């Protein structure tokens, strides 16, 4: 394990809307940190030794880094699009590697078995071919033309539809999902997974959404996403080994796992190994 490459990345450390002057004690990659709102109303993040850490407030969350980020926080253009509702889902603590939390988010083949009758249902288990690439210019992993039959794709969906997905990994512990928007077919709903690495095998997961849905109550939107993620948590906390293996070992990937393979390759290429191990034992 080396923190070197990942230390200069941005990570979510809390919801901006819930910050107060008393602050929130949390951790980032093993270091205790404190996130608070200062007298001017700005977010402030302090490291374990009292040093001020870099801060951004974006997509409902406060972002920080233990190092010196070389790049600005990744863009989500839809976050500035009029008409969307932005949903701060909150936090789910998961005893798993932060990289495993992202990899599970990229996987659709588990939908019928883990999110039964919501995101998938037997006999509709087939994962059709889709496209995966590492976009060199943006330095992001992308999966496109991902299609899957879903009994209840979103809170706003009434009945089963074949949903189309696009996945994006713009940072080692963040993923952005673009998904068929039932009330507005010409647009994509945006669902993100922002993962705060507390330790190599412990993370706080902050899902966030930017949806076209003027009907559903905010509480119901949050409950829907929390239900899904709690189902994932039961899987994530039981994965073996706890760290994400980056080299082929015991596992047998299939065509359905192309996104995961590209994600692992991209992590390895950048030496993003906090929460990873090289070979599966």
């Amino acid at each position, binding site marked *: 394990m080396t923190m070197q490459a990942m230390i200069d990345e941005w990570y979510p450390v809390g919801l901006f809307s819930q910050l107060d002057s008393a602050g929130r004690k949390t951790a980032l990659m093993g270091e205790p940190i404190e996130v608070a709102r200062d007298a001017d109303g700005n977010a402030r993040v302090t490291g374990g030794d009292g040093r001020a850490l870099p801060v951004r407030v974006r997509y409902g969350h406060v972002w920080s880094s233990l190092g010196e980020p070389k790049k600005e926080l990744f863009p989500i253009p839809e976050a500035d699009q009029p008409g969307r509702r932005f949903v701060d889902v909150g936090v789910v603590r998961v005893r798993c590697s932060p990289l495993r939390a992202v990899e599970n988010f990229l996987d659709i083949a588990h939908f019928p078995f883990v999110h039964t009758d919501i995101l998938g249902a037997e006999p509709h288990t087939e994962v059709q071919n889709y496209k995966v690439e590492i976009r060199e210019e943006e330095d992001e992993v992308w999966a496109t033309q991902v299609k899957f039959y879903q009994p209840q794709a979103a809170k706003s969906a009434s009945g089963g539809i074949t949903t189309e997905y696009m996945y994006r990994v713009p940072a080692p512990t963040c993923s952005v999902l673009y998904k068929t928007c039932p009330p507005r077919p010409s647009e994509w709903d945006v669902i993100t997974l922002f993962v705060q690495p507390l330790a190599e095998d412990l993370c706080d997961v902050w899902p966030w959404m930017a949806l076209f849905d003027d009907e559903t109550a905010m509480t119901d939107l949050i409950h829907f996403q929390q239900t899904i993620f709690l189902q994932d948590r039961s899987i994530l906390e*039981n994965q*073996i080994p706890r760290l994400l293996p980056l080299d082929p070992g015991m596992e*047998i990937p299939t065509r*359905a796992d192309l996104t995961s393979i590209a994600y692992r390759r991209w992590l390895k290429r950048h030496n993003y190994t906090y929460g990873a191990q090289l070979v599966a034992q």
Partner: protein
Amino acid sequence: MRLSHGFVRGEALSCIYHGWSYGQAGNCLRIPAHPGLTPPETIRVATHDVEEVDSVIWVAVGTPALKPPRLESLIPLRSLTAFAGIAAIEAAAGGKASPDGLVEIDAPTGAVCLLLSAQEDGQTLIHVLLKGDAGLAAGIGASRAAESLRRRAEGLQREIAQ
């Protein structure tokens, strides 16, 4: 993900994560994400012999010379995992396990047998067995006694670790 989290349908055992199902010989029967694909022979899981004796399921490691022990007058109640080794559980129970792995403890509602099975990472699986069909109150008493023993054993284990 362990197959023990999975589900049995017909004669196949399926994984809870992606639904891959396996036959009795350990061979993969079906990969639901690719229903048209016949899984290659190389995809298989290790298998072990199992026997059910007196309502307890035994798994063989290797090829044991003996059959599992009979636990005739004992009735299984529940199983629980302790984050403690067998030595710590024996210390908490105040007695050594028999060669069959049985430890006896006293509950206010009568004596209770615990069948101990060492797991990975220093954990122990405790199967709680009642002496005869002793009714609901005895079951609840035995269950509480086993949980209390587990707390003491985990406390002892933490002391050993320090």
